[in-house]
């Protein structure tokens, strides 16, 4: 097992956002967490990336449980170590690209902690192969890109950290359906090349088509789990998330 989240409980102030969720991700899998707004999907990813309790404005705090990755508890480590030591990258909600920096600078910042310059060069080539659009615009400032291009940049940036596990938070948000399909195609490819993916989505339809397994998150609890096919066939999931 690559990642195992055990009984994770997270508070925002006095409100418990995650009531002890447990799930796991195996090497090479695509696992999806689906759920409505406020179910705790982003909180889960941000906790894995150790951004909680860092998002101090909301008073976020981990109050119980553990996140075991390759036998070590991530909760013992600093946020930057989660990326540089363990290779867990995240494509955050809202993309969070560096707006005033160029596409190239955005991509290269993701290699901040890396020393393997030759491999960085190869990785950059690979990102430009996957997203030729980024190469065309490599000197353009991040905020001048369109929504779809920004999403490509966010995924490209995560690839540049050379992580083994990529966390994706709603990559479909705000994108035209055709672009969403492209992004999901790319994710499939990235997975085939060896990156494990944990995908958080509201677009359950797309997510379940892509994923191997899935979990349904509802107001801070995992209510259902199974293979993607099982979940897609489940009448409750159909009713709640797949539009009948």
């Amino acid at each position, binding site marked *: 097992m690559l990642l195992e989240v055990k009984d994770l409980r997270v508070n925002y102030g006095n409100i418990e956002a995650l009531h002890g969720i447990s799930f796991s991700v195996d090497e090479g899998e695509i696992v999806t967490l689906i759920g409505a707004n406020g179910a705790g999907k982003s909180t889960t990813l941000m906790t894995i990336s150790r951004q909680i309790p860092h998002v101090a404005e909301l008073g976020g705090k981990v109050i119980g449980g553990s996140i075991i990755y390759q036998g070590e508890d991530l909760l013992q480590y600093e946020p930057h170590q989660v*990326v540089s030591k363990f290779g867990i990258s995240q494509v955050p909600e809202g993309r969070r*690209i560096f707006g005033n920096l160029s596409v190239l600078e955005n991509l290269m910042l993701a290699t*901040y*902690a890396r020393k393997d310059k030759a491999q*960085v060069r190869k990785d950059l080539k690979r990102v430009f192969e996957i997203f030729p659009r980024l190469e065309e615009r490599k000197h353009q400032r991040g905020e001048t890109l369109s929504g779809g291009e920004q999403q490509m940049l966010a995924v490209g940036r995560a690839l540049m950290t050379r992580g083994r596990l990529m966390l994706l938070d709603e990559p479909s948000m705000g994108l035209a359906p055709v672009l969403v399909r492209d992004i999901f195609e790319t994710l499939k490819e990235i997975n085939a090349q060896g990156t494990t993916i944990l995908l958080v989505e509201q677009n359950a339809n797309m997510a379940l088509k892509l994923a191997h397994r899935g979990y349904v998150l509802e107001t801070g609890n995992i209510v259902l789990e199974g293979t993607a096919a099982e979940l897609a066939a489940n009448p409750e999931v159909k009713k709640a998330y797949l539009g009948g």
Partner: protein
Amino acid sequence: MRKPYLPLVVLLLFVVIIGGSWLRIFNEYWQLVFLFMGINIILTVSLNLINGYMGEFSCGHAGFMAVGAYVTSILTVWLFAEDKVFGPPVLPAAWAIPLFPVALIIGAVAASLAGLLIAIPSFRTRGDYLAIITLAVNYIVKSAIENMEFIGGPRGFVGMKRVMNNMADVFNAPWLLIWTFIGMIITILIVHRFVSSTLGKGVEAIREDEIAAELMSVNTRRIKVIAFMLSCGLAGLAGGLFAHWPGGYINPGTFTILKSTEVMVMVYLGGMGSISGSIISAIGFTLLLEVLRPLGVFKWVVIPLLLVVMMLFRPTGILGNKELSDVFPRLRAIFGSEEESYALASD
């Protein structure tokens, strides 16, 4: 490509200013203006690192300047001058010339340690807290010095004039101006190197989006502490130089929030995240203060008004996030073209 002329230009400037002062081509008034220009450049460029490049908001730069000023001047007075409190000079006057920069460095290190003391608790939080904390620190430093009677308390500390006179007696040269010029060049070089290094890219990432920076493996706390210590240390250097100005005294009243504000004005006038902007605005602001001197206290009406107008019509400052060589590409012949930081990507 041709070799950049910049070192030559700097050398020429050095020869003109120092030589001119030595030979009294520039009278004492102009020497004082040059001195303040140099000190203001150090202050502005160093504060720009925090407020411009990193996008945090420190408003206590004068507090760290005060630490450097007092530590350096106490050292030099104790070592090289006859003083009521510290007694006769510890070392012969001839030593003052080689050891003066050492005293400056010790003052800078002290200011930088004061910065570390502030950085550790304040960078645990995010956002505007640093502004409030540095504001408080500025007041704490001022009050602490006011209550230290052995260094003159609120009346101020004197004796630096004797140090400078002793140095001039051994060998007559505009020593303070020489060290200010060198300190200024070193400051510019250090900050330039820092912001174009890998760490500097991390600084930019923090300014753009701190959470994203951490998701990209940037150790934000470490960078913030290093940048803050560097900035405070350079403010301390400026303080150490300032303490030896021909006036011959410093008092806590010099290092108030007003002085910090003055430095912030220079940073925002010049443009955040621009070293050449900071240099231009520090020179311009120093000259402006002199030009408007006849207005007396009304210059403090005119100058803020200029800032308001500036913010309305050019909110990014003179050169926001750009360097002079970006605006006038021809100047690259002088500055040398900025090496493409990510040259590897162009092949």
